[in-house]
């Protein structure tokens, strides 16, 4: 069954279209589950952020609120966008550039006491860098005032 030029090109196009379509379908389904939304402390406290899903929250670590447990890796601190404060708990090793007053992004869920339990805390490796989400959250909180 030899193929001529036209049908070969058709074959090619069909294959590519099928591949791309498959990728899109798979992508959209995988997306639904793996999309993570970003919220500011204000949005967490006013109920905009969902209670059940894993989300990302960003803000500044409030000075003087970082508390460490002595016998475990549990750390508690407050996160603010300048308007509202969210309490946060994390068990594990914090990134190198985690500091009081610094902007961070945390990934996790709210528990029933409205404490945000993080399973990942991110801080960027740059002294004068603020995660852009955090910057925008601060700006938005400013706008609310």
């Amino acid at each position, binding site marked *: 069954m030899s193929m001529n030029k036209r049908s070969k090109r058709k074959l090619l196009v069909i294959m590519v279209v099928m*591949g791309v379509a498959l*990728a*899109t379908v*798979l*992508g959209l389904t995988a997306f639904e589950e793996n999309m993570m939304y970003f919220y500011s402390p204000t949005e967490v406290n006013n109920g905009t952020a969902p209670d059940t899903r894993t989300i990302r929250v960003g803000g500044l670590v409030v000075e003087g609120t970082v508390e460490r447990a*002595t016998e475990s890796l549990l750390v508690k601190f407050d996160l603010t966008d300048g308007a509202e404060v969210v309490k946060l708990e994390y068990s594990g*090793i914090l990134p190198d550039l985690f500091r009081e007053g610094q902007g961070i992004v945390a990934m996790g869920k709210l528990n029933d006491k409205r404490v945000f339990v993080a399973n990942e805390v991110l801080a960027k490796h740059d002294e004068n860098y603020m995660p852009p989400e955090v910057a925008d959250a601060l700006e938005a909180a400013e706008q609310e005032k």
Partner: protein
Amino acid sequence: MIPEIGLFALIIAFGIAIVQGVVPLVGAARNDATMISLARPAAWAQLLFVSIAYAALTHAFVVHDFSVLYVSRHSNLVQPLMYRISGVWGSHEGSMLLWALILSIWTTAVAIYSRGLPAALMARVLAVMGLISVGFYAFMLWTSNPFERIFPAPADGNALNPLLQDPGLAFHPPMLYMGYVGFSVAFAFAVAALLGGKLDATWARWSRPWTTVAWSFLTFGIALGSWWAYNELGWGGWWFWDPVENASFMPWLVGTALIHSLASTEKRGVFKSWTVLLAILAFSMSLLGTFIVRSGVLVSVHAFATDPSRGVFILIFLCIVIGSSLALYAWRSGSVVSTGRFTWFSRETALLLNNVILLTATTAVFVGTMYPLVVDALGIGKISVGRPYFDTMFALVSMPLILLLGIGPAMRWKSDNSQRIIKSLAIIFAASLSVGIMLPFVIDGVFNIATGLGLAGALWIAITTLQSLYHRIKTSSRLPLSFLGMILAHLGMAMFVAGVTMVMTYHQEKDVRLEPGATYELSGYEFKFIGVKNVDGPNYTAQEGHLEVRDQGEKIADLYPQKRAYSGMGSPMPMTEASVDTNMVRDLYAAMGEQLGDTAWSLRLYYKPMISWIWLGCLFMTVGGVLAVSDRRYRQKRS
């Protein structure tokens, strides 16, 4: 003074690039031999001047000329020489200069090694590369001049990001750029062929070795980056699906497709216009990757806009390069006639499927990387796409690819007999599947279908590849290097799949709090925390932990992870330096967290089975690429 010489050299290089980009092109159109002959000397002259510019910037770094803004931002007095030299490409402006230098090196290499090429084609190729250079010089001169002065000159500079002070990262960008920029050769050949209207298999034969070299560099560069992230970041991961990583992975995927498609076009004269499109696409992805990473648009759309002039320039440049080449493609590719005939069951079809799968993978990465940007840009919200998306997508895409990897090389060109293939591969298929499925049970007594399939896939690739090697040796007296290169690269793929499967299933990690003298057991290995002492490096101070690792009471390794503080202008920058004990079977990995109380520390401990296979596999692919290009038939200057 020297920085001014550098800037001046850059301006001259810009001028030469314009000449190189325009004159030979006009010459080729008019069939003017004088104008055509200008291409080669222009390429050399451009290389000379961009090298002077590059040397001037390096000199400024070496002698601590902090009156150059870029130098004062990315180096300081205590920084070791090696990281002052690599500091040149530590940030945006300098890496653009490195890009231009590498592009010029590739251009000159083409000028040297393609003497057998028809003069007009050669002129067009060099001109297209010259035009790309024009874009880069203009970008530097108008929006990101690396030689910008600062007055008054500061007494000391800001430290280079400590993350970049590691041999792995120091050489990661040049390798990556060699790959990115190398795809410009295939691109230039494709565009030149479209311009000349002669899209026969010749252009494929000429651009094939160049593409393979570029691909090898890119493979090596990505692997180096991954290895660096693993050793340096202290997170124990080897791939994060970070936008920056994705930006280098997309050109790799398209480049891999291009290599395979070029093989079909060269050998069989099929998929001609498809291959041209892939060549355009591979370089477009490289450009997109470079700019997107360097402009900061991936971190946030807003970072892009902090410097609108750069953003606008980038957008226009991409539009011109990609847009015009795609327009050219639309205009000219219609006249292309693919000469080869083949049936459904042939190696051509297998290679076509390979392309489809690789492009599907590219699309998946592209969507995952760009979607958050689009959502952000449209103001709908801020999202990020988690790694499970990418992991799932790749697990799905790699299965047909692995299957194909076993069948494709065994198939004949033009047409093959399905019975023959089934007969020769059925036993291997059954054997690797059953052994693969059994392996997880042997390892830890639990059946795990996903892991079993992964290991079966690795076995399947390895055995079929070795079988085709065996066949070749048996049936032919000659064993071309290009064939050996393919075998090696495919074996590398098998190692890669095995490594990834093992690490993903059996890795163990734990954040622990340990007092000196305390132990923690992970996967049968006993980690004993001895203590911490202070050590000083050239431009940092560190707290170095000491851990002894025992296997059934016997000491097998000492780990010395560090927590470093690099000195800079402001407060010291902290950095984690992991310590790893590697062998072929497993890695034992420790990283320091922070001090808890008087003597206790938090530590990250990892057990990573067979993780070195991942990078070893990439190394095999790289060497395979190098072998393939060393083949005699590419060394014949005239063909």
